[in-house]
């Protein structure tokens, strides 16, 4: 698949997602995460890191960043370029934080790489996101557990915990923000 084809496929989906379409958003995230996983694995391998769990960590951090930065997308620009720039930023940040010089990243880091092999096989992430979850307020954590593990709808999960649906949505949004903050601050020994 060429980058152009990927862009043609993703753009209408992402625009629908920006308008609030949940199914389109899910499809966008699924599609872009396959591409980003392939991209991140390639780049990490070039920086001498071959553990799949690391790529998964950076991918999760990137997905959170994409989500919380949707308002920075410029509708006149390619969505692939936007996603790639965010993934690259998170990757460089990750390498710097984990003690490896980001200079190990090849210079010719082109957005075309998103169109390279896509990786559908998710790897087990390390425990970062689990640790990020622990930092959340208890109610939010229970709410997320309900939604995530039992596949409940927000309405049902909110009901089970005794929150209104609106409050549950706000709690999930804040929870995602807190998780993103936690991930971008953590440091790991080299």
């Amino acid at each position, binding site marked *: 698949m060429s980058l152009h084809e990927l862009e043609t496929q993703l753009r209408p989906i992402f625009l629908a997602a920006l308008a609030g379409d949940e199914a389109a958003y899910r499809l966008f995230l699924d599609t872009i995460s396959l591409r980003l996983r392939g991209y991140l694995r390639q780049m990490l391998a070039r920086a001498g890191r071959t553990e799949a769990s690391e790529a998964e960590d950076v991918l*999760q951090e990137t997905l959170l960043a994409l989500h919380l930065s949707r308002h920075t997308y410029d509708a006149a*620009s390619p969505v692939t370029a936007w996603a790639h*720039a965010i993934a690259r930023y998170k990757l460089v940040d990750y390498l710097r934080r984990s003690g490896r010089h980001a200079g190990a990243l090849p210079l010719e880091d082109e957005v075309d790489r998103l169109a390279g092999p896509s990786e559908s096989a998710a790897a087990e992430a390390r425990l970062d996101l689990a640790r990020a979850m622990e930092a959340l307020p208890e109610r939010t954590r229970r709410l997320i557990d309900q*939604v*995530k593990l039992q596949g409940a709808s927000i309405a049902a999960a909110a009901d089970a915990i005794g929150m209104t649906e609106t409050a549950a949505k706000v709690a999930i949004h804040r929870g995602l923000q807190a998780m993103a903050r936690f991930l971008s601050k953590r440091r790991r020994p080299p």
Partner: protein
Amino acid sequence: MQTDDLISLISMDSRPVDTGWLRRATWLSAFAALAATAGLVLLTLGTRPDLASAWTTLPVIAKVAFGASVATIALMLFQNSLRPGLKPARRLPLVALPLLVAAGWALLTLVQAPAEQWHALIFGRYWRACLIAVPLYALLPLVALLLLARRGAPVDGGLTGGSAGLASAGLAIIAYSLHCPDDTAPFLATWYTIATAIVTTFGALILPRFLRW
């Protein structure tokens, strides 16, 4: 947590998103910061004594136009630098335009004047005040833009910081033109340009450390 679970969770938080907010917020912050800075100049230094008659004269208009064009170009760069995937650095040469126009006008003035006036034309009376005041007043818009930048997604902290500094210098120049009593083109081209460079460098060096996300 599995990536798939994370995706489910994220997609549940899908609400309509306003992609124009950043643009509007940039211009609004800039106008608010300009008004606040102008107010601060009036409060601390006051206007130049002859402002009532001078504000329609070419030198004052030129200072405002210089500051406004620098600020406008810089704010466009700044706003784009908060959006990943755009390459605003390509438009960086635009910044040179107002500086070159000012420099050209200054040279023209100097060529037409006798050499013994050059010193007075360049240094004016208060070049030190200009060099200190503009960077200090620029701190106010700079802080406003920094706070705004943290709501965006700057992937190039140096560019975001530098363009924020440049824009702040432009806004501070507009505000300071209410006070600045030196009216020659060589003065404007020399000291305002140096002051602009100071604030830009400061922004490019200091802001990135507050812009990690």
